[in-house]
């Protein structure tokens, strides 16, 4: 008798997994870099290619954002206004990583839509993006004052994402610092 019950029992366990699985996003790949020191880089800046931006510039002792963007990226266009708002409010400094983009187009983009970035590094061949585990843009990293990656958001940031995912984490980092 018992072995005949194995099939329905197994199936019900399977159902449980499916139920849990339905509420997960199978496409989200968590970064193994969370709570790891951010990868080193030194890249030319977008506005002034003579100057470079390096990881050391991001470790200011305060939390910062690093936003990976490009002009060919639809999601980046969606979130740009939000980034400009955040930048205006002075909540947190935002650095940019312009990923595999056309320089002229990128400059025009910032001119037209506003420039929320303290500085933008240009990653032409995508090597730094690989080091950071970037797989689609926009992606936004939250770094603490010591240059450790604390959070990564994949996809555009909107008001809801900002309030749900970023604000509490930033507040927590600031508290931890003091």
């Amino acid at each position, binding site marked *: 008798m018992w072995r005949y019950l194995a099939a329905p029992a197994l199936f019900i366990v399977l159902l449980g997994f499916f139920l849990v699985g339905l509420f997960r996003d199978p496409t989200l*790949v968590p970064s*193994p870099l969370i709570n790891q020191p951010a990868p080193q880089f030194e890249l030319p800046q977008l506005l002034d290619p003579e100057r470079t931006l390096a990881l050391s510039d991001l470790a200011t002792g305060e939390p910062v954002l690093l936003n990976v963007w490009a002009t060919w*990226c*639809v999601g980046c266009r969606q979130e740009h206004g939000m980034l400009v708002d955040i930048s205006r409010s002075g909540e947190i400094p935002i650095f940019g990583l312009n990923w595999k*983009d056309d320089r002229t187009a990128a400059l025009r983009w910032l001119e037209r839509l506003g420039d929320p970035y303290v500085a933008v590094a240009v990653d032409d061949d995508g090597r730094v993006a*690989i080091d950071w585990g970037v*797989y689609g*843009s*926009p992606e936004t990293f939250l770094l603490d004052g010591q240059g450790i990656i604390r959070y990564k958001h*994949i996809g555009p940031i909107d008001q809801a994402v900002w309030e749900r995912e970023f604000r509490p984490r930033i507040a927590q980092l600031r508290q931890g610092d003091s």
Partner: protein
Amino acid sequence: MSMRGILMALMLLGLLLSAAPGWSAPHTPLTVEALSPLEDPAQRARYERLIREIRCLVCQNEPIADSNAPLARDLRREIRERIEGGSTDREILDFLTARYGDFVLYRPPFTPRTWLLWFAPILLLLGGGWVFWRVLRSRADKPLDDDEAWSEDPEPAEDTPR
């Protein structure tokens, strides 16, 4: 299209069209140089095997060998340069998993978490063998005649070897 097969394309089409993914992939031109083959046949074989075992993250379900996504191209370039630079397969895979996690490996690493997966073939074969042996043993002692209630075949089987 970032989808894996026609089947999937067909079945997910409606869903994909209604969804609005927030990101997109960059477009950078390919060059003639990037397509010249690796000189050393052993290195070339390693390269071709590795790019089949790395999952393209942008596309979600194809190896970087089959993807035209620029990230897949960058990763192919990275792997190629590392092979030419003398890295072992292990080092290359470690380089990738350190950045993207185990998700990029189509061949899941052998860890306690995947023991069940990797031991399953042998466990199931043993279990199947045990069932097979038990059924054979119990049936061998039973009468070869059919059940009374079981009807005769309307047409006798023609399975006599000659």
